[in-house]
C-alpha cells in the first residue's frame, strides 16, 4: 500500500464537515472498525474539520500506512496553520483524543496527522474500497450528478433538435415524394389517355378496313353462288382467289383488333350453352379442305362431355388458332384434337397434339409473345401474323382458363387448353315471325348484300338508309324483323334501337344488330333490346340467316349452309 492510494476530502465549509464525518464513518465501517470506533473516528474528523474551517479551509487525506502494523492515517492539511499553534487548539486536542496519535513518518509543517491501528480483520480489498468511498462526499456527488443531469438534459435537448431537423428533412422528403406521386399520376393519366387514343384509333382504322373487306367478301360470295352464272371457269377461280385474299386480310385485321381489345380489357362475353361435339363438327368442316391439302388428317376425339356454357365463339377461335398452327408446322403424321371433362374441377380440357417439327425448349416461353414467329427450317406455308397464340392465351385467360404447351423437337407439340365448363350465363333467345325484313344500313353495299341473301331465302326486304326512315318504315310497314346497323350518320343504330323500344307499335319487333363494330366492343347494355348482335366481319351472314330462319318453318338454303370462310 502506498501513499498514492489516498482518499481526499476538501474541508471548506460546515457542509464539508458533515460529509467528511459521514464518509469517514462509512470508510471505517468498511475497514471493520466496530460501531464505537466508527463514531469516535467520525467525531474526531468533525472536530479537526471545524478547526480547519476556522483556519480558512483545507483538505483531509486518508491513507493506510505502508509499514506493518497497518494504520489508518488521517492527515489534515491547512496552509494557514502555524507550527507553533500545533496541538494547542481544542479541536486538535479532541481529535487527538478521539482518533489517535500522530503518524510517525509524517511530520510536516502544514499538517496534523492522526493514526489508528486497523482492525486485524481488514483486508486489502476492503482498504481500497474504503478509501475510494472516502474519496467522494455526498455534496460533490450530488453536484456531480446535477452536472451529469444537466449534461444529459443538454444532450436530450440536442437530440430533440436533431430529431426535429431529421423530422423536417423527412417532411421535405415526404413532400418530394408526394410531388413525385402527383407527377406519376399525371404521367399515368397521359399514358391512359394515349392508350385510349390508340384503342380508338385502332378501332376506327379497323372499322374502316373491315367494312370494305366485308363487302368484297360478300360480293365474291354472291358472284360465286349466283345462279345467273355468267362466270367463266377462270373468272370463278380468280374470284375465288380474291375471296381468299380478302378473307386472309380480314382475319389479320380481326386478330389485330381482337388483341387490342383484349389488351384494353374491352371484351364482352356472350355466354351460351353448347356442345363440344358441335364445335368439333364446325372445326372439322372448316379445316377439311386445308388438312386434305396438307395430307395431314385431323383426328377429333371427345369423350362424354357435358354441355358447356361459355363463349362458344371464343372457344372455337382458340381451337381454330391452335389447329391452324399445328397444320402449318406438321408435314406428315396427324393432328389429334381431343376433349375431356374433369369432374373434380369441372373443367373441360382440350388438347391439340401434332407430329410436327416441335418447338425448341428455349422458345417455349416466347411463343405466347406478340409478333413472334419462330425460325424454322421449314418455310412458311402460310402467312401468319404471329398474333394467334398470344390472342388465344388472352382469350383463354378471360374465360377463366389457360393454355399450356409441351413440345419435343422433331417429335411434335401438344397444346392444352383448360376451360371452366361454365362461364357466367347470358342466354339470348330468338323470337320472331315471317314477314317483311327491314334492313337499316347507311352503306348501300352492305344493304345490298343483306337484301340479296335474305331475298334468296324468300324474305321480302325493305331498305332504309338512315334512322329516320327506318323508324317511319317500322311503324308503317308490317315488319317482322329488323336488321340494324349501329354506325350511321345522323341517328345512330343505338338511338334507333331505343326509339323502336319506346314505341309500343314497334317494341315487339325483333331486332338483329349487324354491325362492322367489333362485337366485343359494343356496350351490351345499349343493345340489350336486340335479340342478337353480329359483326359484319364475322361469319355473320350465315348466322343472321340462320337466326331469321329459326323463327320460320323454312330452312336456310343449302348455299347459306355451306357458306364458310
Amino acid at each position, binding site marked *: 500500500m502506498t501513499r498514492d492510494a489516498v482518499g481526499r476530502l476538501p474541508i471548506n465549509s460546515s457542509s464539508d464537515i458533515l460529509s467528511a*464525518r*459521514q464518509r469517514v464513518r462509512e470508510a471505517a465501517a468498511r475497514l471493520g472498525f466496530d460501531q464505537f470506533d466508527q463514531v469516535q473516528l467520525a*467525531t474526531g474528523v*468533525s*472536530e479537526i474539520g471545524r478547526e480547519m474551517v476556522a483556519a480558512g479551509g483545507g483538505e483531509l487525506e486518508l491513507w493506510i500506512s505502508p509499514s506493518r502494523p497497518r494504520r489508518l492515517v488521517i492527515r489534515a492539511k491547512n496552509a494557514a496553520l502555524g507550527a507553533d499553534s500545533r496541538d494547542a487548539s481544542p479541536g486538535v486536542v*479532541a481529535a487527538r*483524543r478521539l482518533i489517535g496519535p500522530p503518524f510517525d513518518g509524517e511530520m510536516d509543517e502544514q499538517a496534523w496527522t492522526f493514526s489508528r491501528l486497523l482492525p486485524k480483520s481488514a483486508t486489502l480489498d476492503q482498504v481500497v474500497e474504503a478509501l475510494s468511498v472516502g474519496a467522494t462526499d455526498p455534496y460533490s456527488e450530488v453536484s456531480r450528478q446535477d452536472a451529469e443531469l444537466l449534461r444529459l438534459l443538454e444532450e436530450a435537448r440536442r437530440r430533440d433538435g436533431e430529431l426535429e431537423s431529421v423530422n423536417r428533412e423527412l417532411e421535405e422528403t415526404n413532400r418530394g415524394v408526394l410531388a413525385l406521386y402527383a407527377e406519376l399520376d399525371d404521367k399515368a393519366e397521359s399514358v391512359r389517355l394515349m392508350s385510349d387514343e390508340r384503342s380508338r384509333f385502332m378501332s376506327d382504322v379497323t372499322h374502316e378496313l373491315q367494312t370494305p373487306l366485308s363487302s368484297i367478301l360478300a360480293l365474291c360470295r354472291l358472284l360465286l353462288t349466283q345462279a345467273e352464272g355468267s362466270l367463266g371457269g377462270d373468272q370463278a377461280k380468280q374470284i375465288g382467289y380474291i375471296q381468299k385474299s380478302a378473307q386472309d386480310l380480314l382475319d389479320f385485321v380481326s386478330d389485330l383488333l381482337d388483341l387490342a381489345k383484349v389488351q384494353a380489357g374491352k371484351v364482352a362475353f356472350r355466354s351460351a350453352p353448347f356442345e363440344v361435339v358441335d364445335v368439333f363438327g364446325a372445326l372439322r368442316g372448316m379445316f377439311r379442305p386445308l388438312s386434305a391439302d396438307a395430307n395431314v388428317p385431323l383426328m377429333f376425339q371427345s369423350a362424354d362431355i357435358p354441355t358447356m356454357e361459355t363463349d362458344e365463339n371464343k372457344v372455337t377461335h382458340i381451337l381454330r388458332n391452335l389447329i391452324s398452327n399445328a397444320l402449318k408446322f406438321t408435314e406428315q403424321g396427324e393432328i389429334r384434337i381431343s376433349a375431356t371433362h374433369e369432374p373434380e374441377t369441372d373443367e373441360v380440357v382440350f388438347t391439340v397434339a401434332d407430329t410436327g417439327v416441335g418447338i425448341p425448349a428455349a422458345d417455349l416461353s416466347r411463343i405466347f409473345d406478340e409478333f413472334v414467329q419462330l425460325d424454322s427450317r421449314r418455310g412458311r406455308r402460310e402467312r401468319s401474323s404471329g398474333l394467334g397464340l398470344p390472342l388465344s392465351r388472352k382469350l383463354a385467360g378471360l374465360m377463366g382458363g389457360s393454355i399450356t404447351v409441351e413440345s419435343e423437337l422433331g417429335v411434335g407439340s401438344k397444346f392444352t387448353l383448360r376451360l371452366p365448363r361454365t362461364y357466367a350465363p347470358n342466354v339470348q333467345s330468338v323470337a320472331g315471325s315471317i314477314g317483311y325484313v327491314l334492313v337499316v344500313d347507311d352503306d348501300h353495299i352492305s344493304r345490298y348484300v343483306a337484301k340479296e341473301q335474305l331475298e334468296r331465302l324468300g324474305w321480302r326486304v325493305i331498305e332504309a338508309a338512315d334512322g329516320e326512315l327506318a323508324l317511319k318504315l317500322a311503324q308503317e310497314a308490317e315488319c317482322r324483323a329488323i336488321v340494324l346497323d349501329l354506325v350511321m350518320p345522323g341517328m345512330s343504330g343505338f338511338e334507333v334501337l331505343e326509339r323502336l323500344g319506346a314505341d309500343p307499335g314497334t317494341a315487339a319487333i325483333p331486332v338483329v344488330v349487324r354491325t362492322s363494330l367489333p362485337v366485343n366492343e359494343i356496350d351490351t347494355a345499349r343493345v340489350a333490346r336486340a335479340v342478337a348482335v353480329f359483326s359484319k366481319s364475322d361469319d355473320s351472314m350465315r348466322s343472321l340467316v340462320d337466326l331469321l330462319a329459326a323463327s320460320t318453318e323454312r330452312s336456310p338454303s343449302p348455299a347459306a349452309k355451306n357458306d364458310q370462310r
Partner: protein
Amino acid sequence: MDRVPIIKVGKYLLATIQTDVQDHVAVALQEDLAARIIAARARLVLLDISALQIVDSFIGRMIADISGIARLLDAEVIVVGMQPAVAITLVELGLTLSGVRTALNVERALAMAGIRDQA
C-alpha cells in the same frame, strides 16, 4: 434536512433529530424550540436523538444550550435515546452535558415527567 420538526403532543413538545445534521440546522432548532415553548406554553420538551450517530463538540454544546434556554423559559428538556457510542464519545470530548436530563426512551421520559407533575 433544513429544519428539525417539532411536534406538540398534549402539553409536551417532541423534537426528533432524524439524521446527522448540519450546524445551521442545529442552530435553527435552538431558535425554533425557544419560540415554540413560548407559543405552546410547554413545560416539557422531549429531544429525541436516537437516530443521531455523531455528536461532536458543536452539536453537544447545542444540546446543552437548548437545555439551558428551556430552563430559563420554565421548561425542561429531556434528551431521549442517546446512543452508547455517542455518550462515550461525548465523555472523551469532555462534554458531560451537566444539567441536561436524559432518558433511555420516550416512555421513560414521560414517566419522569409524570413524577415531576405529581410532585
